[in-house]
């Protein structure tokens, strides 16, 4: 967000706070093997940097300075370069986030179909504003740009993972209750409208949850 820039990772002249010690900053043999496989996919090791940053974020939950340095050292790249990559892309967390990050889409399709209603509803339920994390460290809310699910707006994404489509306040309640119990939503397969006539519904027999396209709700707030 332009209006709420994250705290700087480095303050000039100050030693950055360390969150992980040298004992934490090691790859398992399996992870190292995966990384080697990625490096082989590209003409130079640079190409694998985004994948390794993803792996590091899965392992450490976020990317403080020492993790970024660790990734750079793994691939034998200049630390400044990896730092530059990590700070360019919004999905890499440069600050500690809640256990579950709710990325609520409010870009124009969602905006017109009640994305802000959902955002404000979640803010009220959790007692935080967008860009903040609950005191217990369970939830963060972010307002994000288009997630490419405009046909099933309003929608959100949970911690860079599953999408939750066709949101209503009731669906948000269920989602929050499930997440509190540690249950991540399953893969929601959204039926193609043309399939309803020709295939009698969704075409994937292995989908965990089937969502149909529904008439979008009337939005109460659009900002």
């Amino acid at each position, binding site marked *: 967000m332009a209006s709420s820039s994250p705290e700087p990772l480095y303050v000039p002249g100050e030693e950055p706070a360390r969150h992980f010690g040298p004992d934490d900053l090691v790859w398992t043999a399996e992870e190292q093997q995966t990384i080697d496989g990625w490096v082989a996919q590209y003409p130079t090791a*640079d190409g694998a940097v*985004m*994948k390794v940053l993803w792996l590091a974020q899965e392992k450490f939950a976020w990317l403080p300075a020492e993790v970024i340095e660790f990734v750079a050292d793994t691939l034998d790249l200049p630390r400044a370069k990896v730092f530059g990559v990590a700070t360019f892309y919004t999905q890499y967390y440069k600050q500690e986030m809640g256990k579950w990050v709710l990325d609520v889409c409010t870009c124009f399709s969602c905006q017109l179909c009640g994305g802000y209603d959902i955002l404000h509803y979640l803010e009220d339920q959790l007692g935080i504003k967008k860009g903040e994390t609950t005191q217990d460290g369970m939830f963060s809310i972010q307002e994000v740009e288009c997630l490419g699910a405009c046909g099933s707006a309003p929608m959100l994404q949970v911690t860079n993972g599953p999408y939750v489509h066709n949101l209503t306040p009731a669906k948000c309640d269920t989602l929050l209750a499930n997440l509190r119990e540690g249950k991540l939503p399953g893969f929601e397969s959204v039926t193609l409208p043309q399939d309803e006539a020709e295939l009698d519904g969704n075409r994937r027999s292995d989908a965990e949850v089937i969502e149909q396209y529904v*008439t979008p709700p009337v939005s109460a707030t659009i900002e």
Partner: protein
Amino acid sequence: MEVPKINDGTSKAGDWRNYKRVLLPPVRDLHKLEVYEQNGGYSALRAVLNENKFDPKGLGEHVKQSGLRGRGGAAFNTGLKWSFMPPVDPDVPRFLCCNGDESEPGTFKDRQLFEYNPHLVIEGMVLANYAISAKACYIYIRGEYASWIDHFQKAVDEAYAKGYIGENILGSGFSTDIVVHKGAGAYICGEETSLMESLEGKRGYPRVKPPFPAQKGIWARPTTINNVETLACVPLIVNKGADWFAATGAEKHPGPVLYGISGHVNKPGVYEFPTGMLITDLIDEVCGGMRGGKKLKALVPGGSSTPVLTAEQCIGTTMDADSLREAGSMLGTAGMLVMDEDTNMVSFLRRITHFYHHESCGQCTPCREGTGWLEKLVTRIDEGEGNFRDLDLLLDLCDQIEGRTICALADAAAWPVRWTIRRFRPEFEAKCKPSTFAGADLGDGASTEPAPVS
């Protein structure tokens, strides 16, 4: 003599009510390799590699004849793009990039291909690699699509196991690889050169062109870049022929296309039809009409950067490049946003300007600063603090931004502002405070920094 109008109100999609889908045919579990094979999957690849249906050049020529135009937004002839690759030099590896970044607001079509028909995309990639003699295809999928990246990676692994990708494909001696690359949340990486920077593991700053990707693409090697849906059309062209493709839909912009329709319609979603569908047919018949029986007010035909059309402009207009150009917009990605009569166009534009401000990569000053000013000014108008002269200031700002940057993001940010104001000016004026004469400092705050955006 009067020039005949393109938009004479007739559909160019032919008998679309009985159209048989080909990109997403009605087959259950088509994403599974064995189901795809049972339904004629990889037969185009066999025909080309085993039965010598085409040599690489011939395949490119065939695709050129089919009239396939890129589905990512620019609608450039795909076969022609392939022909820009320099002559094959065995010492210089060549690459194909597949652009699955799909971050243009309003666009959600490629995701359906990853979910429901990934092997069609893979077959198209291998065929394209063959046509341009590429060593590997890197497919860049936006990081938000984590679930679909998993689906697609699984399909790639299956295809590797069956020998459709890798060394000596189907015993033909042709070898090529497919690498799935996961983005991490940056709209700008949908821009072709920015995508290449990102693939190389850098910040996604667009490159200055020339050199064009066909000369110096990823790792400074000759590279062709195509959209996911574009490549998915290639096996269909091989199987059914260029003539079939050219005869489907609008004459100058043929083929099947995935329309992603969102907003105030009863049945939003992705629909496959030929190009050249009447916008009114899409809304009234295909999508079951407007939500709540409301009237259409405005429509964005192809993603956030394409100029918004008024309801009058939509009448008689079809979804193909030429028709939309005449109507005053572009096809873009065919991701349509439908807005009903209750839509507040100022708030709508405010959200778009916020998007471009957030997503500007910051490399070029006119865009980095300009998108911020666009947002500040539109926000001020939306909050009722704007002045009449702000509207002309916004249009002037658009002039200062457009065409003055490395990539087209700045143009994409300026177009919606320019055309929404031009086409819905009374609505903007209704929100502005009157000012008695332009240019004077009336103590109305216009000469000072506007309040920060909340």
